[in-house]
């Protein structure tokens, strides 16, 4: 019952993905706009779903892996709708809507659990701040990775002189590199704040800022990778292909610390319900 809106949203995102897929195949703009409106309606349903879960649990709804994935998908679609306002090219939709669908299916089938009342350690004002910042940072990194992927495709097409429809659909190399240039400092800023607020929270709950739990370690590695990227970009002028590849690697790390660590390495930094014996601390 608590998944009604979630399922509606997922169905609409799948519809949007189908619309965009048809658009990619036959470049019919009307299909792309079908996809867009499905995405808009899906986003509304998704928003309702998140609110519904929040009321259901009586608290900020990001305490379980499922909710975090759902919120992440929501954020991606949200950023896409914002970006589309500035760049109406439908190509982003063709990537974001299937991506959101996959994230949601993943969350639903693999890590879904019924919401239960929050355990006391999660009842902190730091939780929403820490989690929102971390998720927003992830959203920006995801967009950089999408841009990077498109950059590699477009670059390849131009280098090998295949200027067909896909080439015309993809944004210019300059535009795609701009996503990387603007996204990098912004995402890095959010990630840094996410880590700092997380440390404050840890300190208020356990009295220690940093405990070298696997998730913290991997997040720190991610932080260093993005710091390195900023250095390469600003000082050595790395741009274009190299920056695109780095954005994809960086996001791989982000996804690993986000979901992979919990699944593979465990540790106390798990979501609520995933590990009852350790005090969970959000993301």
């Amino acid at each position, binding site marked *: 019952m608590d998944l009604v809106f979630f399922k509606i949203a997922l169905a609409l995102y799948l519809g949007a993905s189908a619309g965009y897929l048809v658009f990619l195949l036959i470049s019919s703009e009307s299909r792309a706009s079908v996809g867009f409106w499905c995405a808009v309606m899906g986003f509304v349903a998704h928003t309702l779903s998140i609110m519904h879960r929040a009321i259901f649990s009586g608290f900020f709804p990001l305490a379980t892996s499922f909710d975090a994935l759902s919120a992440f998908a929501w954020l991606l679609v949200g950023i896409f709708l914002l970006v589309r306002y500035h760049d109406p090219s439908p190509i982003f939709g063709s990537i974001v809507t299937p991506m959101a669908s996959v994230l949601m299916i993943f969350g639903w089938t693999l890590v879904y659990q019924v919401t239960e009342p929050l355990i006391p350690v999660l009842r902190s004002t730091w939780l929403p701040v820490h989690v929102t910042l971390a998720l927003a940072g992830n959203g920006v990194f995801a967009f950089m990775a999408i841009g990077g992927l498109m950059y590699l495709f477009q670059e390849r097409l131009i280098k090998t*002189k295949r200027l067909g429809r896909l080439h015309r659909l993809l944004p*210019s*190399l300059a535009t795609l590199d*701009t996503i990387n240039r603007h996204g990098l400092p912004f995402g890095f800023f959010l990630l840094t704040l996410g880590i700092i607020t997380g440390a404050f929270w840890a300190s208020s709950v356990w009295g220690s800022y940093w405990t070298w739990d696997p998730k913290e370690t991997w997040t720190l590695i991610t932080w260093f990778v993005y710091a390195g990227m900023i250095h390469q970009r600003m000082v050595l002028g790395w741009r274009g292909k190299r920056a695109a590849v780095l954005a994809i690697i960086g996001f791989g790390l982000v996804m690993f610390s986000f979901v992979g660590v919990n699944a593979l390495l465990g540790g106390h930094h798990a979501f609520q319900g995933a590990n009852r014996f350790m005090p969970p601390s959000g993301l």
Partner: protein
Amino acid sequence: MEIMVIGLNHSTAPVEIRERITFPGDHDGAVARMIGDVEGVEEAIVLSTCNRAEIVVTTKDVEESRERLIRTIGEIHGQDPSVFRSYLYVRHGADAVRHVFRVAASLDSMVLGEPQILGQVKEGYRRATKARTTGPILNRLMHRAFFTAKRVRTETGVGSAAVSVAYVAVELARKILGELRDKSILLVGAGEMAELAARHLNNQVDRPIVVVNRTYENACILAEELQGLPIRMEQLEQRLVQTDVVITSTGSCDPIIGKAMMKRVMRARRHCPIFLIDIAIPRDVEPDANEIDGVYLYNIDDLQAVVAENIGERRKEALSGERIVSEETEKFMHWTKTLDAAPTIVALKEKLEHIRATELARLNGKFADLDPAQREALESVTRQIINKIAHDPIVFLKRTGAHGKQNLYLDAVQRIFRLNGAADNQNEGEEL
């Protein structure tokens, strides 16, 4: 009443004929007026572009009007009809409608899918409306033509791929460098094709084009012509560092830009992407240079291959365009059939009878205690009321058949009484 098109275009007439038949002096619709005044012609539009000259008219008698119209075209241009008659195409009915839709949708253009034609058709229509030579049929025909053109443009890719070398180069530069305004262009050497591409690109940028040549004097001459900046050959490498688009076209036998040179240049420009267009034969740029990260090298063969591929793509997309045209032609022909007195009168009577029947049915409960005679009287008096109301309009519509304005009134009656889904037609018109 039938729609007829008479004209010639790039595929039926050689340029010597096309340049003689151009319908000059139509800027205020004067020519459309002359065509409209031909006996038997009711509505008229004149369309003239560099590749076509044609008239669209409605007439009662296709055979008779055709001869009169061809004579009039000859008079307008001071030519004997025998000069151009064999190059003319004459189409009427559904063929004429299809022709107008295809022209507006740029499916009949010399460069398939080129966008200017729609504007030229609109201009011809605007002049005709100014001269008041259009009526309900051509008004609707043209609006449907604009609608069809819009559908073809948005639902197919017929206009999307660039089909000239210079234009492909500009599009490609945009895909690599984004907005071109603040970019800089370097022209190395000279040559017709290179200059053409340079001019096209030059229109897109604000910064002056830089021209380099083996002989500095030649560079100066060309630079002046293009309002650019001449430099000496020795400064080439240094200049490449600050340039975004390079067009090379020298007569040199050996490449003047080598891979090693480009490597140095890329380091110096911190790997900012650079677009090299090598139009020279033999090559001016070593083909290996394309392997360097950030260097995008296209030679003339590459560009021509893209053009050929894009033309093929437009042809393929045009097939879907033809399908849309067929659909719209069919819809339009369906509408013209309703523009006839008999079906309109029938529809009007049916509508009134329908109103009478529903109103009576609504009040059935109140008339429950009427005896059969009273009920019969009620039926008869209501029927007489609607017959009296309908009588004058019907007589009027029948009588207007004798003179020319019948279509106008049929159309008006259909709209006023919302017959035959006339309301839907109106809504469709508003989409434009």
